């Protein structure tokens, strides 16, 4: 099967989208950009391929195992969880070995075997936790190995080091040296093995699905056996110039966002994308071709990172900002769109006794006001209007946007796709497909 890959190398995350010959999205993958776009590209692409295998499994199971009807989503979720657990265990083994290899140097003199013992105990405990972390009802705050393994390692190691009478610093030292190496190491090629081990366990441990093991295995194996030929790849986003892509494999993110939004909503004429460090107002024609664009200049205030800074200032999680702002009954006016000044204004308002939710509502409005100025410079909003980028997931930002769009441009259809973070990668994948077909 021919596939067409689009990679969007953002300042915060790197996204990949796989299209099939019918221009259907068969896989999406995302990873943290980790200041290493080569690795980020490889990982995002691999994640998209994993997702594509799941799509192919879905297609095969739908046709070949009709008794899963109505429960297919659940079945596939469990299959993926099992796969993720296998993947986690594999990386955990790698991390353990790498940590042990790093027990070297004066600071470890005479304590090598004690540190090794503690490490083995730590990783044994983490392996035991894997089933729970990837259990059907578990909630994970992140899908990235560094976040999941890291937070548990630090907690468990501190505890066990204390019990063993060892300095916690020694365990931190080997971890810090090892995690980057492991994160940047190409994952093992044995994707099918992990899927099949997950499937075997699922069939054995979840009889409630009532499926015939051989039939299901045949369907999944057929899906895993499909040859995913990489017909063409296009890269976009800030990291694109750092990659060993030749020029014809690179597209500007403005064109990719315009085309991606058009693929999601073909009647799109205006696109607003608020990413980590830039805000783009884009006008596209009926074919998704960019007609005009404007971006923030010289300053990235009002972009995604601004919200990150505000979250830090308020000692909140980024994802908590929107919900809190939604509780507001009156919006406090925040005049400054300079990130640092906004922080000062925020503290000032708090000191004056304003409620956090009202201040946050004002901050969200400030961001959207800035975006509205960029849109108007690009030519205003024409029906339909598509909002993309990480900030599109923030309900308070969306609420302010809707208000301001109605006030300034009247009744306009506003599209926000749940997968909007992949808009640039989708555009890139579409360029890849058009390059061949």
């Amino acid at each position, binding site marked *: 099967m021919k596939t067409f890959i689009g990679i969007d190398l953002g300042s915060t995350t790197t996204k990949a989208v796989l299209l099939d010959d019918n221009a259907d999205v068969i896989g999406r993958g995302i990873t943290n950009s980790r200041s290493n776009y080569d690795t980020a590209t490889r990982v995002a692409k691999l994640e998209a391929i994993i997702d594509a295998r799941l799509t192919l499994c879905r297609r095969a199971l739908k046709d070949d195992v009709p008794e899963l009807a109505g429960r297919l989503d659940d079945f596939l979720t469990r299959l993926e969880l099992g796969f993720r657990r296998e993947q986690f265990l594999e990386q955990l083994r790698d991390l353990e070995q790498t940590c042990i290899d790093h027990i070297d140097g004066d600071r470890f003199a005479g304590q090598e075997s004690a540190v090794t013992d503690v490490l083995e105990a730590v990783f044994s405990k983490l392996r035991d936790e894997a089933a729970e972390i990837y259990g059907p009802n578990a909630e994970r705050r992140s899908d990235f190995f560094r976040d999941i393994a890291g937070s548990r390692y630090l907690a468990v190691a501190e505890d066990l080091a204390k019990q063993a009478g060892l300095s916690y610093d020694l365990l931190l030292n080997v971890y810090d040296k090892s995690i980057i190496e492991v994160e940047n190491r190409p994952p093992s090629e044995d994707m099918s093995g992990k899927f099949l081990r997950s499937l075997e366990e699922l069939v054995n441990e979840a009889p409630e699905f009532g499926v015939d093991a051989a039939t299901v295995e045949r369907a999944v194996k057929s899906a895993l056996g499909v040859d995913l030929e990489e017909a063409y790849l296009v890269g976009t986003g800030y990291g694109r110039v750092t990659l060993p892509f030749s020029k014809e494999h690179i597209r500007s993110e403005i*064109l990719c966002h315009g085309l991606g939004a058009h693929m999601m909503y073909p009647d799109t004429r205006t696109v607003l994308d608020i990413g980590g460090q830039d805000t783009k107002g884009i006008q596209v024609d009926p074919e998704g071709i960019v007609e*005009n664009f404007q971006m923030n200049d010289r300053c990235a205030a009002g972009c995604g990172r601004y919200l990150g800074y505000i979250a830090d200032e308020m000692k909140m999680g980024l994802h908590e900002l929107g919900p809190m702002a939604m509780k507001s009954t009156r919006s406090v006016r925040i005049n400054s769109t300079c990130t640092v000044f906004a922080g000062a204004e925020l503290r000032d308002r708090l000191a004056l006794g304003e409620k956090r939710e009202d201040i946050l509502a004002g901050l969200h409005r400030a961001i959207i006001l800035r975006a509205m100025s960029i849109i108007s410079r690009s030519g205003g909003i024409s029906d339909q209007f598509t909002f993309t980028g990480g900030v599109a997931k923030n309900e308070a930002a969306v609420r302010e946007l809707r208000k301001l769009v109605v006030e300034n441009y009247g009744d306009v259809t506003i599209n926000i796709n749940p997968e909007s973070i992949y808009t640039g990668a989708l555009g890139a994948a579409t360029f890849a497909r058009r390059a061949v077909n």
Partner: protein
Amino acid sequence: MTEITTSRAERPAKDAVKDESMLKQKAMMAGHYDRLTSATERGEKVCATFVPGNLNELIMCFDFANNLPEVNAIQNGLRKKSGRYVMESEKLGHSEDVCTYVKSDIGMMAMGNLAPNGKPLPSPDVLLLSYTGCFTFMKWFELLREQYQCETIMLHTPYEGDGWVTENMRNYMVKQLKEEVIPKLERVSGVKFDIDRLRENLKRSAVAEDDLVYVLQSAKNKPSPIDAYFGGIYYIGPIFGAFRGTDDAIDYYRTLRAEVQDRLDNGRGPVTPEGDMGEEKYRLVTEGPPNYTSFRDFWKMFYDEGAVVVASSYTKVGGVYDFGFRHDPERPLESLAEYCLGVYTNRSLPQRVDMLVDYVNEYEADGLLINSIKSCNSFSAGQLLIMREVEKRTGKPAAFVESDLVDPRYFSAANIKNRMESYFQMVDQKRAGVKGAAA
């Protein structure tokens, strides 16, 4: 506009490729600064004036050496000195958003007032403000008057708000020239005005202007033998500065024209700092001044992509010659008035739109690129409207980037390059339609 001189010590590591005309211009500029910096010891009087509305032919009639503060600011931008000067003038109380030509000039004066040859520039004996389409010029000369306490002459040029020059406007200017400007210049210089001398100067101007127009219009060819923005800034140097009306200017433009003719005959593209440009892929019209502190980096973003500028509005700020105007020895004062009235920055927004639309069509350009200058409201106000109108009337895509004249803090190379690349790809898409968009 500028005349570019760069001393060897300050040159970038890789020497720029230079044509004969460029070497000639360099020698002319070195001579100009030597004349200026030795004016006092030689007993020569100095007149300071601006590029738009520059009355060089008249100034020459009184034996003044002509010092142009904008040209000094540009020289300091290109020579990476303006950043220090801008900051110095901020220390003296000039705010961040003030025109950076002004701040570079004020800072330069505060830090020794050195010309590119390393010698101090002389104090002017007279300030001649012959153009007021830019109000900052007036404020700038107020500051200079305060500094030098010398005679200040203002020739008021009415704005072409309705889009044309009326008889009254011309007469008003001629009256000022006769009753205010010439008597004052006579008084300061001690030289009696001789209208025949002015006629001779104007005759020489017109000869050079003919060759300049030939050079600028050569860009209608494909491939264009010149770059009318980055290269164009070299080409306008002598005629916008202290050389219009001189034999040097006639020689320079004759040499330049021959070079361009040779390029045309041999199907060669424009010269760039790295030699001849490769294949011409994009033909652009530009609006707005360039950035001088990263001039070469900015230019490289064009020629690396095969983009050539075929026409620009900026190369018309010191005179619009390509629609037929010439200095006319038969109507000396009237033609000086018409020259001032017609400079690009004295034209209304609709006139600017008409001119840019005409350029996009006449020069068969792929679109319009606007470099909007942070500290120049006079140029920047209305540019988004201009952009939309040109897009609408030509059907060609436009792009908008922002930087500054000579403040190095406001050139963000990564962002500008990102936009330029996006724009070129947008042009590709437009040309090729849906299928070709990916090719």
